């Protein structure tokens, strides 16, 4: 049986769903060491809009899944709190949190999801899902810093399927053994079509949806079952990127990296009050100071006022002077125009501020806007 992800001749790894994606018309491209579908026959624009209207199925098995396992919840949670600014001790069974893996200087190594199992059998386990591009360094960093008695177990034998869009709950309902009726950022272990899964109501498109972790050998059966529903179409990484950008969500390594702190990256909301009061996470001195005194730059939404998209790396100017840079930019199919985000001088990080984007050496007018570009549509009960 397949354990981990097979490597093919070109040096790219294949997820358990790669062949299925290819057979469905996926145009495979290298991404984070994997052959992944960037789009299907419909193309990015249609796939994006389909997901916002119906249900898109994404193979995200390239992402890193792991369990951090300790003797009890508090011990495991505290071990992770020493590495991230999230409140994991306060996680209730079945709850999921978005958090940030920090360097000792308070820079962001990666963002991730941390989930506490709802089942007493897994007391002391927290499940992590990290970005594909960083899973090696993330897991090494975490493993090397866990205290005695707490360990990290990577789960390369698991696939991950994201189903996203307003019709997703309707699609899943007939297959869920017990109800899949949880709210945003809640999870449970259950069966879908008789297959054991970890299901969380989350995702990275701004839509209601679920991420389903499943043993690799059952991934194809599960994906095929879901794709039988006419409301479900396979969606590529291209649309995944435009969906998350419209939703104002960061792409790790682009919209932040080790040189940016959570405060600069406008992710202070991921540092709850209890952690601000007690500190005790990497870079806490700097981050707590920045929380009260501010930073020199801030991540903001930037809307080009013309039709030309401004891509990553585009300089942002004010009256001809450099004030920042675009970190993600493209076209928002649902928004119906170009969308971007990036870093600007903190005093300019105010919606309505007019800026210039230097696209191909010409200044194009733009303005700072509140994120997201398209309203988030999470299910909160």
């Amino acid at each position, binding site marked *: 049986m397949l354990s981990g992800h097979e490597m093919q001749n070109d040096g790219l790894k294949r997820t358990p769903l790669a062949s299925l994606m290819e057979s469905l018309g996926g145009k495979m491209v290298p991404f984070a060491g994997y052959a992944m579908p960037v789009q299907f026959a419909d193309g990015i*624009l249609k796939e994006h809009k389909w997901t916002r209207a119906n249900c898109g199925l994404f193979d995200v098995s390239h992402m890193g899944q792991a369990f951090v396992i300790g003797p009890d919840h508090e011990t495991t949670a505290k071990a992770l709190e020493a590495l991230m600014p999230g409140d994991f001790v306060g996680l209730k069974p079945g709850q999921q949190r978005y958090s940030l893996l920090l360097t000792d200087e308070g820079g962001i190594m990666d963002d991730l999801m941390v989930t506490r199992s709802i089942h007493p059998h897994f007391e002391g386990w927290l499940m992590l899902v990290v970005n594909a591009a960083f899973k090696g360094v993330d897991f090494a960093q975490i493993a090397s810093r866990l205290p005695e008695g707490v360990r990290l177990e990577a789960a390369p034998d698991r696939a991950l399927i994201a189903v996203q869009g307003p019709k997703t709950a309707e699609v899943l309902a007939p297959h869920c053994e017990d109800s899949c009726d949880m709210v945003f950022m809640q999870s449970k272990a259950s069966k879908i079509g008789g297959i054991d899964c970890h299901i969380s109501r989350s995702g990275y498109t701004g839509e209601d949806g679920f991420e389903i972790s499943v043993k690799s050998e059952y991934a194809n059966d599960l994906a095929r079952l879901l794709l039988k529903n006419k409301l479900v179409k396979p969606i590529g990484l*291209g649309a995944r990127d*435009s969906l998350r950008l419209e939703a104002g969500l960061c792409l790790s390594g682009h919209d932040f990296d080790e040189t940016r702190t959570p405060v600069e990256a406008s992710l202070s909301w991921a540092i709850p009050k209890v952690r601000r009061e007690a500190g005790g996470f990497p870079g806490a001195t700097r981050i707590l100071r920045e929380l009260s005194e501010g930073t020199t730059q801030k991540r903001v939404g930037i809307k080009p006022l013309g039709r030309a*998209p401004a891509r990553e790396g585009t300089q942002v100017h004010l009256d001809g002077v450099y004030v920042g840079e675009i970190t993600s930019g*493209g076209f928002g199919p649902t928004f119906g125009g170009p969308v971007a985000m990036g870093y600007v001088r903190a005093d300019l990080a105010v919606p309505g501020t007019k800026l210039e984007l230097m696209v*191909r050496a010409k200044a194009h007018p733009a303005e700072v806007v509140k994120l997201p570009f398209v309203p988030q549509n999470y299910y909160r009960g």
Partner: protein
Amino acid sequence: MSKLYYTEDHEWLSVDGDTATVGISTYAAGQLGDVVFVELPEVGKTVKKGEDIAVVESVKSASEIYAPVSGQITAANAALEDAPETVNEDAQGAGWFFKMTISDAAELSGLMDEAAYAEFTKE
């Protein structure tokens, strides 16, 4: 009677006497995916073969359009500014980018005809 040429950058030229209409090939439009923005050259601009003079952007990426031959831009397809999707719908017709004069007809000899381009794009 116009003659159709292609460049290795997947542009087509329909040449009629000493003028050419230029766009990107149907194959290129398919590879690029949904076109969401086109930046056209200024009419009257003198261009050298190989110079980047226009841009076509899909959801995912931006690609340069090069002058396929040397000459002067005589027209730009302003309709693409409001309807860039025309490039996908009719790449080698209504989706044309610009028209230009050809200052050195000898430059055409390095280009491909329909059959050669079909071979060039064969996978």
